[in-house]
């Protein structure tokens, strides 16, 4: 049985259907890349899985560790061992980086997690998770905090967006360390190099999974599409051809 089993998931927001009959499974210790153009529904899938307010599915099922996520509020899903790193993480006044990393794991030492994402524990630990951090710094801290939770399933929404080119390889190592720690990862990305590190990949188009398979094949197919913003139509011929 897969760790995460999503069957026929449908979600409508503001009268528009964002996810359509979406089916996807993720095995234990699998990194699963999710590729798709802007507007294809990648982040919506992340929010529906995590149980964010306003992202309630209108159909289908989501099973994690054999449990139906549907009736569970967000914090109970987190307590089951799943979590989400946002594409644009929130900022907090008065919460230090060290305390942010300890959230949900009060006894944890933040230092190794900060080091792992390339930040000095001495320099960053006492700082606040507020607007004084750059976008890239905030992303690294988000990853460190999610890593410190030691989740069974981590949804990483564009984890390398805003990270400088020289550090992307370091971030890929961080993503691999989730797997080494026993977690599965849903890796939402636009970047081919990031997708290629996955064990499996799927392409999302118009709220549907139109292809799943080896990351290289899925990335190649994704590149053939000319979508800047997903219209849910142009990718379908490629999917049919497969």
């Amino acid at each position, binding site marked *: 049985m897969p760790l995460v089993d999503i069957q026929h998931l449908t979600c409508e927001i503001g009268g528009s259907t964002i996810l359509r009959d979406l089916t996807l499974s993720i095995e234990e210790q699998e990194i699963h890349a999710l590729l798709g153009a802007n507007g294809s529904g990648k982040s919506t899938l992340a929010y529906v899985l*995590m149980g*964010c*307010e306003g992202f309630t599915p209108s159909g289908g099922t989501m099973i994690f560790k054999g449990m139906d996520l549907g009736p569970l*509020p*967000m*914090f109970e899903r*987190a*307590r089951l061992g799943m*979590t*989400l790193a*946002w594409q644009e*993480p*929130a*900022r*907090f*006044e*008065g*919460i230090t980086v060290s305390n942010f990393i300890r*959230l*949900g794991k009060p006894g944890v030492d933040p230092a190794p997690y900060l080091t792992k994402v390339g930040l000095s524990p001495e320099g960053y630990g006492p700082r606040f998770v507020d607007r004084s951090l750059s976008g890239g710094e905030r992303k690294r801290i988000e990853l460190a*905090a999610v890593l410190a*939770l030691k989740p069974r399933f981590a949804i990483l929404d564009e984890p390398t967006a805003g990270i400088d080119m020289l550090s992307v390889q370091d971030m890929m190592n961080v993503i691999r360390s989730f797997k080494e720690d026993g977690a599965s990862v849903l890796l939402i990305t636009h970047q081919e190099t990031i997708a290629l590190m996955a064990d499996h990949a799927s392409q999302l188009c118009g709220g549907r999974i139109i292809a799943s398979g080896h990351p290289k094949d899925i990335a190649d197919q994704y590149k053939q599409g000319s979508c800047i913003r997903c219209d849910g139509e142009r990718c379908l011929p490629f999917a049919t051809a497969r």
Partner: protein
Amino acid sequence: MRELKILTETFQSLGGDPEVFQDRHIAHMAASGHRLVSQREIPGVTIDAHETGDGITNTIIIEKGKHIELPIHLCLGITEKTGIQRIQTRLVIEEGASASFLAHCLFPFVESGEHRMDATLEIKEGAHVRYNESHYQGTLGGMVVVPQAMVSVGPGAQYFSDFSLVKGRVGQLQIDYVVQVEASAVAELTSKVFGRGSDIIHIKEKIVLTGEHARGLIKTRVALEHDAQGEMTGIMEAHAKGARGHVDCREIIKDRAVGRAIPIVQVTHPEAKVTHEASIGTVDKKELETLMAHGLDPEQATELIVSGMLQ
């Protein structure tokens, strides 16, 4: 002395070190109601304090060019269940001097009381002052606190003020500060208040940037729950070339609480600039959900966000 004992015990219960009132290297003044219960001068700091019929009048002077390393403690309060305390303060930081003040205003048992502060701060050219004022007004909501201050910040001087009332009840609070900032000087006013029950909070802070390249910041953080009401007025005026000001007000409200923010900005010089931002409402959804994705329930997450904002 009983009053000093109560004040220092309350100070200690809130995390303060009562030894500061014994340390001969630390200047201080402590008053309960209209009784002056303790004071100490140190080289560079003169304190001239007198009891009046219903309070204390005092002048504190930091001598020209002196850098006072340890904070000067001002401990003011009412130790009975009822009482009135009117404080008239004149604080002078002479040219090139620097000092920090920790003012503790403690009213731990008051059922019905009033504390008024009329302060004049003269921060002369090149001086540097940090003034942190924290209040504890008990749990009954019976205090009326009215701090008023007129502050002048001389050329090249720096003034940082931090007002905090986040534990227990507020009662009624009416802050009214006016700060004049001269050329190349800096003034930053920060206020953090947590209103509960039927507390009523009015904070009016005004910074007038009169000199070239003067800088000003008014930052207000207020949390309101139950039936508390709050109105924050931040006024920033810029009248000279290169003056820069910003007003930043954030209020989180819960239950039946009502919050209002009134930013007023006025610029009379084409090369000056003032900005403002204000937000009132419930806890930010994304902040809340980020914490819940770490396993905190909604109550824990809200408490952490509010306490962080007021820290």
